[in-house]
């Protein structure tokens, strides 16, 4: 399921203007904005999991739909958790 979420917007990234007679493409609408807690705990693995699709990568901002500031905080927390083997770098 997470894999599908990951793929869908990428197909629609081809620009706003369509090619030739195709109708202009629209960007996939982002997910509704989530409320990120003021303090993102790097040890709270279950919370951070929601920003990690199946492969183990950090979900890009265009898909997670959170603000740049929140994305930075989430990314730092994930990286910290990874260094302590709480989260994997890659999932096979």
């Amino acid at each position, binding site marked *: 399921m997470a894999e599908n979420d990951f793929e869908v917007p990428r197909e629609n990234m081809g620009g706003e203007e369509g090619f030739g007679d195709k109708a202009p493409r629209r960007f996939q609408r982002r997910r509704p904005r989530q409320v990120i*807690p*003021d*303090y993102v705990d790097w*040890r709270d693995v279950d919370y951070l999991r929601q920003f990690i699709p199946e492969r183990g990568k950090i979900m890009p901002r265009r898909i997670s739909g959170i603000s740049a500031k929140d994305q930075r905080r989430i990314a730092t927390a994930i990286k910290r958790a990874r*260094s*302590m*083997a*709480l989260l*994997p770098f890659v999932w096979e």
Partner: protein
Amino acid sequence: MKLANRTYEVMYIVDPETAADKIVELNETIGKLIEKEGGTIVRMDDIGMRTMAYPIKKRKDGYYVLYEVDGTGQEIMELERRMRVNDAIIRFVTVRVDEDRKKALKMAAKREKRQSQRLKFRKTTEETAEPAVELQDA
């Protein structure tokens, strides 16, 4: 040099093959070291055995311990030096948390303030809006 008061989270993984009493002993010595170097232990969390997300030093599990320390940073320096030497500790990390927590408090306060002001504004608009609707009906 000004010694600022800081809060750190120190987490380390102990090799799961060390004996249980050795782990307890190790935790005690680390606690003592922190206090000796001038830090205060806010919280000590013995998380225990946990499967690691990837193997470290060919171990699949690890014994996790977390310390929350108030201090100046001097004791962290000493602690990290000791941990680096210790063979039983396979991984450790120190995170300074006081600044992020302060920021979080600030953000919460800001949001509260904004919300209260919004409420004030809403009240006034409702008061003014209601008679306007009546006029339109008439």
